[in-house]
């Protein structure tokens, strides 16, 4: 399955020159939103100067709890949400330990990273990459 990964040693995370290109490209190009805070990934600078990233690793926990099967793995193993059948219950948001889901006041359906790689291309530090890894086993939640 396609998984987005970050190398925090390369990521600038706002510490020097970073313009958060990953977030703005995700928000604009993937979700047509102007606010980078609405992106489906986040990189932050911590108080000690190190970086922190909030990325979906496509673990599939949200697929397990979704009552409508709106969340499913596609052919590439990426977990995608079908807005047509989503009922906006937000169980995915509550059960995601990495808290990667986003929502905004315009839509009742939440959204998430689809491992599309637009942020990878946008990152000037080459900190992000898409890798192919095996799907994790089903977890009973």
């Amino acid at each position: 399955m396609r998984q987005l990964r970050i190398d925090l040693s390369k990521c600038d995370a706002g510490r020097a020159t970073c313009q958060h290109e990953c977030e703005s490209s995700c928000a604009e190009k993937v979700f047509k939103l102007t606010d980078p805070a609405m992106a489906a990934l986040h990189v932050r600078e911590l108080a000690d100067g190190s970086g922190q990233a909030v990325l979906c690793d496509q673990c599939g926990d949200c697929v397990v709890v979704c009552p409508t099967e709106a969340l499913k793995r596609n052919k590439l193993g990426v977990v995608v949400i079908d807005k047509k059948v989503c009922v906006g219950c937000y169980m995915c948001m509550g059960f995601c330990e990495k808290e990667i889901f986003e929502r905004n006041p315009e839509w009742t359906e939440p959204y998430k990273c689809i491992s599309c790689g637009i942020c990878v291309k946008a990152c000037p530090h080459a900190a992000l990459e898409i890798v192919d890894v095996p799907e994790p086993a089903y977890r009973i939640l």
Partner: protein
Amino acid sequence: MTQFVFDPTKVMDIDFTKRTEYLEGLEAIKAAHKVLKEITFTPSLPDKGYNNRSLYVNVGTLEVKEKPVTQQMKDVFIGGRGFGLWHLWNAVKPTTRWNDPENEIIISPGPVAGITQYAGTGKSLVVSLSPQTDIPIDSNVGGYFGPLLKFSGFDALEIQGKSECDVIVFIDGQKGIIRIEEAPQDPVDSHVLAEVLTHMYAENQADMVNISVVCTGAAAEHSLVGMLNFSWWDLRRGCIRLKQAGRGGIGTVFRNKKIRAIVCRGPQVKGDLNHVADFETIAKTGIKYHKEIRTNDPYQCMMRRNGTAHIVEIMDAYDLLPTHNFQYGSHPDTHKIDSAYWQSRCTQKTVDGCWYGCSMACAKGADGLVVKTGPYKGHTVTVDGPEYENAAGLGSNCGVFDPDYLLELNFYCDTYGICTITYGTLCAFVMECYQRGILNKERTGGLDMTWGNAEDDLEMMHQMARGEGFGVIAGQGVKKMKELFIKNGWGDPQLINDIGMENKGLEYSQYLSKESLAQQGGYALTNKGPQHDEAWLIFMDMVNKQLPTFEAKAEALYYFPLFRTWFGLNGFCKLPWNDVVPSNNAQQPEAHKIPEHVQNYVDIFSATTGIKIDKDELIHQSAKVYNFQRVFNIRMGKGLRKDDHAPFRSLGPVTSEEYLSRQERYDKQIAEEMKLDPTAMTLEEKMAAHRSWRQGRYEQLTDAVYKRRGWTPNGVPTLERLKELGLDVFPEVVDVVKLHL
């Protein structure tokens, strides 16, 4: 005390997609349907939780009309059970009984019902005059019907009249059509009927989730204890699931009206069909709650793994698990039906939850049961549950500790349309009567009703469904069986009355209340009868000793019944309130009320309706409906102090066996509480002392509770109390009360 940990390797490997199918005759069944009446309507979606109209259907005259939901209805009755009681009040006279055409069945979901972001928000409240109690009964049920009805455009469905042929009422909220169809060839039992009708009325596979069926089964036609099933489509299993409006015989009323089913086809559910006033607050509250379930439930009640069955072994440990007709509170075989077993037997690798967004997801299912007896012998079925009440009522209370038989009893109760709680208690009564010679094989028509004889237990249930033999007598319920056994001279009337666990005509639910005076009141000082949904105070009272005085117990019996009534006004489930708690709950003032969750409810109501309330207003809202229901009972000839008496089995030890089994406890109470010397007393004297002490305390409790509720010593709400609640605007309500002041 060790916290039981979930072990996925112990879950039985059962294919949850496999079961017997019943679709073969679907086309012929459908072709036999004949449209008796069809009208069109304009579907609508609620605004701030209300459509402001309800639907009236008379299956006798075929009249179908819309009725306005007035501002006064919303102000006084809120919705759900409140709307049900109001419609029923207007439909019946004091002389009306359950089988009169004017009796109604009202289904109303409440303003909050149908939001998808918080756990336990899909409930419907069903109200009718009960065949068992002759007063209003209300039942809180899951499944998709209530929300789908609301999203079709109606805040309540009122069904009145009696049909001459079997009919189906179909409400199509997508196309705006209401049809009454004659249904001459439809299956009778729920697990078949709900499956057939879901496939019949869904236009394609994706439409299945938009269908919910209300139906009952064969036993509802031959007994007074019939229940209603509310279906929902289980996507992953690919089958219908059933939730039950169990108590009080509403299924019997349903079949008496010759209704085969009510089917609603709603629009596709989305996140804000209620068009709430403040979506953001509901979203945030819901996500916070889902996280609480994710982090705390695995270390607290494990509702997601066990459902309510998690308390089977706990009740046994505290001597509260009803055993052999509420004689005892524990049994050595309880481990065979404890939560560790159900956790391995219920399917875990799927999503349960009887409405969207229920992260508590207690609606467990046991798949792959191969039925051993009756008309479905050899079929592979999915059983909903078992819930705690079923495990205790059908299990320990009747001495059945074989889990497969317990599941089969549960399955047949559901599909035949029998309330599992009622059946458990009435069967336990039959078995004790058999044990004590009040019944014998001759009187039961050959049934050997010894403790734990599941085969004859099942045969009695099959008789109930066929309308044959002793099953018909049992299906009249404990109250009428008591009357019959006494009339026939089959036993000592006092013993029969003492051990028959009913009050107001309704059977007790499955907790032993002998050592908790507050719970004795929680059962019998109720509106509809002894059901634990008003107040469950055993731990507070008996274990924690937090309610040392009559006044403290009365305060709990004021607050909790009102707090819990509120769930039924709004379409909430009670379980998410207290079957998980926030991590910091212990540090909160009044931790036993779970203040953060109470605030969640206040916030969700305000955010849905736009009407700002606080936790005191919440109680005030309930008090209006609760007192209205009390007056309704009085109007129907009950609802007075005499109707709140409790059978002695619920108060203390009836028999010498019971006394001797807990002799140390009872002797100690004689010495410490009654200040008598047990060593100088015979067993009979000790039992008599307990009877008089316990009955005296129950009367004192009744006095204290009535006083706290603003009622006279005869249990009648005073005019001052009615004024305080604004119920004096209804002259008929005042008139009922005036007759008793």
